[in-house]
């Protein structure tokens, strides 16, 4: 069962990718890119999900995917025209499909009524007489369930590469020869309308999954009169026979007016577990085929079936001792002029097969351009993230060690031009490069977060009755995995906010002379070693008057406080601030932007807002590229070296004695441009010393806590800014109040990274504490 579970996990991973492809394709269609490639890519995504789900018996998912697929198939063969309405329907259907996948995974439930309604809608959109005419239909592309590397009968070579990129699992299956059958239009002339020749060669997997060819034949018989012939020529002598292998081929002549799709549907659940050829009519023998090595006696069926055996198969890795001939693929000659290209199995997952001339109706399998789809010859490796984390740890140690070495050598006063010093320089450079490369391994494009957003925008827009279009930019901007995982919530919140509060209703927009459809832009970019996420809307902007009056009403600021526009805009980040008139599902629970700000700051990030009345607002979020390293200010406090995260520091200054005012019995505040912030001696707060020295002798770092409260931390000296590798204290000890983590400095000693919020709060807990005038807003 474990193995099956593992395959299932792979399946769901691939579902994620397929759903992303699906959504990407549909969005491309929405943008007017409605060509065959895109539709095919969309169709394949749904089809692959269905195929995989079928193998696991995920019934509701299969049923829904099937209806969805049927509509896409109709669209693909141009039976129904592509319209914006259809695309919108498909997008909504993709949301339901995603729900089904999540439900199958055990995450959440599907609203079955909504699903049924959607299925009905899809059915209605599909032409009821949708059985495609084979002559006009493009060569059928059978996308493999990606966890089963098996022969792919395909229309074009690039399709082969596209689908095969998914086949990087390690189930121990060998690679099968790839057979490429190219249909030729010339064949159609000789075709008898409703006679089909179906060649079925089950693989041992078919039986292993408890499928049964007898049942398939019975299903086939329901379509019309059948005449089945068994070809057992590949059956080895009894002493060579592997009891679990599959050796036989059926050739079935079916008379049906239901078309190829109906036949194919019979084999839906053995997709990939048997080699299937469906050919219209009883075509004459191809000259070309006759020259191929002919291993089987001609089948006595009316339609002749030829077996071409690929001799080079024997070099393919073969875990099971089955004779190579057994694995040979079966090709039914479709037509006299049909060229047959044999691609031999290569050990690499991307065999290159050259198609001499693409058939006229064959779909090209090109997927929408994506950076993460490997090109020909490339392959993707799935690696356990723990291994990468271990590597990153080791490289972190290497960096520290290199710094220590450099420092030690420096202590001996070796000339910079000496060989030793130059060697060390090179080592340093190499170490840096290794660190960057290792970090790059864990870096992922923000796409994985972004791709969830179009759906969110649709749902929120529906809920709020607004029209919104999401424009995304920079999806391929890369950032460390640890950051990606925590980007989703802030972005979700900001987008909701942009639609709910930013955009006007369509009527308001029309009245203001704007397009009724609002545009929300989500962009990611790299800027000075950080990742910047921008969420902007073209809505009404922040209503400063209202924000100010609400802040006063809620007691967040004093009424007579004069604030700049920027300061007013930033009021929305205060805890408990919410401008929504009514509390909705979307936003307005008063936990809006302050939560965003806090979670961003917890990541060492910053958030800011720029708003222009009538033109919209832009939220800018800047985050470190990784959570494994941190930019910090190295300071001395009471003989100890501490690192203060740079993200918290607003400014550093040397206070003059007149700026320090006593407040209460022992407290002091620092006057910074007419506002007073509490002065906190880090040494005293952390119990390094009992009494603080005069603040004028030290350096003051003005810091901002996560809740926006400010404090002036007193340190003895500043050593400068440094990037440090974050080390956990909890791993061998436990959390220490006031300390966020530890790091190792160039001299090899451990330095503690200050938890600024905890330090501010530790101070607050001390009983004789004067009220702080600047903190009215935060409390």
């Amino acid at each position, binding site marked *: 069962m474990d193995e099956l579970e593992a395959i299932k996990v792979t399946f769901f991973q691939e579902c994620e990718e397929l759903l992303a492809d699906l959504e990407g394709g549909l969005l491309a269609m929405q943008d007017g890119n409605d060509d065959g490639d895109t539709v095919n890519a969309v169709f394949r995504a749904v089809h692959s999900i269905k195929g995989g789900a079928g193998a696991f018996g995920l019934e509701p998912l299969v049923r829904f995917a099937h209806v969805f697929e049927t509509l896409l198939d109709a669209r693909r063969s141009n039976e129904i025209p592509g319209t914006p309405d259809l695309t919108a329907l498909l997008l909504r259907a993709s949301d339901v499909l995603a729900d089904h996948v999540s439900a199958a995974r055990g995450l959440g439930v599907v609203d079955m009524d909504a699903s049924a309604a959607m299925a009905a809608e899809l059915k209605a959109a599909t032409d009821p007489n949708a059985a495609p005419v084979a002559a006009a239909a493009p060569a059928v592309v059978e996308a493999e369930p990606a966890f089963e590397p098996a022969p792919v009968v395909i229309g074009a070579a690039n399709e082969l590469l596209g689908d095969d990129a998914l086949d990087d699992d390690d189930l121990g299956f060998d690679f099968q020869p790839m057979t490429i059958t190219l249909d030729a239009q010339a064949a159609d002339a000789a075709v008898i309308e409703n006679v089909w020749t179906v060649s079925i060669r089950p693989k041992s997997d078919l039986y292993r999954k408890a499928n049964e060819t007898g049942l398939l034949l019975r299903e086939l018989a329901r379509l019309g009169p059948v005449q089945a012939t068994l070809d057992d020529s590949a059956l080895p002598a009894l002493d060579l026979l592997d009891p679990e292998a599959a050796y036989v081929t059926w050739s079935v002549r079916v008379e049906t007016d239901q078309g190829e799709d109906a036949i194919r549907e019979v084999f839906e659940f053995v997709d990939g577990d048997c080699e299937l050829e469906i050919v219209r009519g009883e075509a004459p023998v191809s000259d070309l085929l006759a020259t191929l090595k002919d291993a089987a006696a001609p089948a006595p069926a009316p339609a002749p079936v030829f077996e071409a055996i690929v001799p080079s198969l024997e070099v393919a890795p073969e875990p099971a001792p089955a004779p190579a001939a057994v694995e040979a693929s079966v090709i039914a000659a479709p037509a006299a002029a049909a060229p047959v290209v044999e691609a031999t199995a290569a050990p690499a997952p991307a065999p290159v097969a050259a198609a001499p001339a693409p058939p006229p109706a064959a779909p090209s399998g090109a997927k929408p351009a994506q950076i993460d789809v490997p090109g020909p010859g490339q392959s993707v490796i799935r690696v356990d993230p723990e291994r990468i984390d271990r590597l990153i740890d080791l490289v972190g140690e290497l960096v520290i060690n290199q710094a220590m070495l450099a420092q030690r050598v420096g202590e001996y006063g070796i000339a910079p031009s000496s060989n030793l010093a130059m060697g060390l320089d090179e080592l340093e450079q190499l170490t840096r490069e290794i660190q960057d490369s290792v970090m790059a391994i864990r870096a992922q494009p923000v796409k994985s977060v972004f791709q969830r957003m179009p759906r969110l925008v649709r749902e929120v827009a529906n809920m709020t009755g607004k029209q919104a279009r999401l424009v995304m930019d920079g999806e391929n901007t890369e950032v460390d995995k640890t950051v990606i995982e925590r980007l989703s919530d802030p972005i979700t919140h900001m987008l909701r906010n942009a639609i709910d509060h930013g955009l006007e209703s369509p009527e308001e927009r029309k009245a203001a002379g704007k397009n009724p459809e609002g545009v929300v832009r989500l962009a990611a970019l790299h800027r000075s070693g950080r990742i910047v996420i921008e969420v902007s809307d073209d809505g009404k902007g922040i209503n400063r008057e209202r924000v100010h009056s609400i802040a006063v009403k809620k007691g967040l600021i004093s009424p007579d406080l004069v604030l700049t526009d920027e300061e007013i805009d930033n009021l929305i980040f205060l805890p408990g601030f919410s401008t929504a008139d009514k509390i909705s599902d979307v936003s307005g629970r008063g936990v809006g932007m302050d939560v965003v700000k806090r979670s961003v700051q917890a990541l060492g990030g910053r958030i800011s807002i720029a708003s222009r009345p009538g033109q919209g607002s832009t939220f800018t979020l800047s985050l470190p590229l990784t959570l494994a390293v941190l930019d910090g200010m190295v300071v001395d406090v009471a003989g100890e070296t501490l690192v203060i995260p740079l993200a918290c520091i607003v400014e550093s200054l040397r206070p003059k004695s007149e700026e320090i005012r006593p407040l209460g019995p022992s407290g002091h505040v620092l006057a910074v441009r007419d506002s007073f912030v509490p002065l906190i001696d880090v040494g005293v707060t*952390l119990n390094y010393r009992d009494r603080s020295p005069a603040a004028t002798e030290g350096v003051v770092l003005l810091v901002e806590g996560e809740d926006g409260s400010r404090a002036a931390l007193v340190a003895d000296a500043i050593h400068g800014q440094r990037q440090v590798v974050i080390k*956990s204290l909890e791993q061998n000890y436990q959390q220490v109040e006031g300390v966020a983590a530890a790091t190792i400095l160039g001299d090899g000693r*451990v330095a503690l990274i200050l938890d600024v919020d905890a330090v501010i709060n530790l101070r607050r807990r001390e009983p004789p504490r004067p009220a702080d005038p600047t903190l009215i807003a935060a409390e």
Partner: protein
Amino acid sequence: MTEAIAASSSETRELISFRVGEQEYCVDIMAVREIRGWSPATTLPQSPSYMRGVINLRGAVLPIMDLAVRLGMPMVEPTVRSVFIVVQADSRTVGLLVDAVSDILSVSDEMCQPTPDIACDAVRSFVRGIISIEGRMISEISLDRLLPEREALAA
């Protein structure tokens, strides 16, 4: 010495003995990862007095516990001869600061005596038994009790 002891019983355990002040203690050798010379530790704020701080052990942050203080004895500044024994207990790795490592002992269970009932709480909690060898008295440390509960120490 060790040979004679090993012959006396089949159920022998190996222990590392060390000095803390004038007294001898030991821990099971299976828990010991390595023994290192003392190097100054980075003080941890808000921590009990027996936590000397943390040091860098090949890139990992290793807390150092002053065993003398933990056992209720006065704190003595470490000298160049002081060492710390890196021990593994539960999932944590901790360094125990001791004055010197003296011996590796092979002892059988019958050589262990229960801890005599004395007033000191620390001794009652942290000494799991006493071993008598050649007139020496060596107390075996119980590592799992030595390390504070993660929550209990948070205060």
